[in-house]
């Protein structure tokens, strides 16, 4: 088992908990609104952005945020207006982002930068900084306020967007806020979980909780609980096995999902 200095251990535990909270809470919207493929594309855009940040010598986090927000603003209107199948557009965007990410990584000179780039790809507890934690705390607060203040609008949109629109809610603005929060959440969790796996942390805990409850309030409360637990267990598993932290978190959250499907009371007959 890897032994960490106390300060790093605390930073990592807080980072894992916050990333788990942010991603799994956003996941409740992403899963219910069938935005999984859009979010998947955004996580790879964030990865490409982080690689771009490294290439031009700025904080990879800024690059990740810029690319994922850009993708959110591009995909939002396209998914609403395009006459093409949205999945086709996402497929093209996704491949472009991966291609760009590898081009940027390839252009980064020196071994050190490659090491950083790989950490963005796989995730690493060592790259989480004090500033990252502050950003995650801030985003967590924004998400909690967003859900509390606009709960009735969110519930209405998640039930049926057309009916929500017909009852006088401006659904477009909420749709974009959700995409925007997804982009930021993905970007801030990128260092910990890694660009290739961050999206699993969005989908898996929320999908697990959906197997247990019919009351949306309970889903909103328990999805972050499962998300945080998955991250902490994954972190512990990573220390135990020396596996990359992102992979460990995703394996734990996928096991939780598999367990949820098996024991789901919603899927039981009788």
């Amino acid at each position, binding site marked *: 088992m890897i032994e960490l200095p106390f300060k790093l251990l605390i930073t990592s535990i807080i980072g894992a908990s916050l990333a788990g909270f942010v991603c799994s809470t956003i996941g409740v919207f992403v899963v219910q609104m069938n935005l999984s493929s859009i979010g998947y594309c955004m996580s790879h855009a964030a990865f490409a952005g982080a690689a771009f940040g490294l290439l031009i010598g700025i904080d990879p986090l800024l690059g990740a945020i810029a690319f994922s927000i850009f993708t959110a603003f591009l995909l939002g209107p396209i998914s609403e207006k395009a006459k093409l199948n949205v999945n086709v557009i996402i497929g093209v965007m996704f491949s472009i982002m991966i291609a760009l990410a590898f081009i940027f990584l390839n252009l980064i000179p020196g071994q050190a930068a490659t090491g950083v780039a790989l950490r963005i790809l796989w995730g690493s507890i060592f790259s989480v900084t004090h500033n990252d934690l502050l950003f995650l705390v801030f985003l967590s607060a924004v998400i909690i306020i967003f859900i509390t203040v606009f709960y009735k609008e969110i*519930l209405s949109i998640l039930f*049926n967007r057309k009916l929500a629109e017909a*009852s006088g809610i*401006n659904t477009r603005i909420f749709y974009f806020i959700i995409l925007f929060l997804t982009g930021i959440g993905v970007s801030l969790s990128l260092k910990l979980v890694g660009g290739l796996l961050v999206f699993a942390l969005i989908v898996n805990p929320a999908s697990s909780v959906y197997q247990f409850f019919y*009351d949306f309030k309970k889903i909103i409360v328990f999805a972050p609980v499962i998300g945080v637990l998955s991250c902490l267990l994954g972190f512990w598993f990573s220390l135990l096995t020396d596996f990359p932290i992102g992979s460990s978190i995703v394996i734990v959250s996928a096991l939780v999902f598999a367990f949820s499907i098996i024991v789901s009371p919603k*899927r039981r007959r009788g």
Partner: protein
Amino acid sequence: MNIIELKNVDTIYEGEKIPAIYNINFSVKRGEFVTVIGPNGAGKTTLLETINGILPYTSGEGYVFNREIKRNREYIRKKIGYVIQNFEIDPLAPFLCRDIVMTGRAGKLGLFRFPGETDWQIVRSMMDLLGVKEFERRPVGKLSGGEFQKILLARALAQEPELLLLDEPFSNLDIYSRRNVEDILSELNEENNVTIVMVSHDLNMIPVNCSRILVMDKGRIILDAKSDNVDVSDLIEIVFSKSGNQ
């Protein structure tokens, strides 16, 4: 006073060249109960969604509550209860019936306002009115088609609308429930002066108390008459022999 006023309105779906409805001249006075009938594809749903601005009309002029529809969509929608044509609901959907009925009030309440006890009382009374009060804590996905339809109606009524737009509101309802819903609509129309525009593809679904019948076919209004002056056999002749698909 006209509550709905459409003048030479065409509505074209994005990417289409032919209007789904065209040259629509249609006005409804406050307190009228209008039934729009026609075969599938006649443009009935498009007409409803043009009225509430879900589908922006591409030419002509449209007013609801004396306000131009496109510029005042959110304002007018807060006063319009809309029942969508029956849609598939995931049996595992994470929504309780009472919460769905409450979503009907979300737009009317407006941003930054939380539902209070009065709002919940309205929700409960509308569920009671439609005979679904015992489903308050039941998941919507577990309801039968008819029960779900009643929840959608309760949701629209919880909005306390001035205008009700109902798209095939009797679909999935058994004969007893249908009569019950018809009575509720008539009462709302007569006692609360709620204006109702409902569409149906089925001639047997025209409510007894409806005051006016509109017949649509291929995107046009081909008949607009007081219900007392319309003979059902004439309607059958007009709608179904012409369309040839029913």
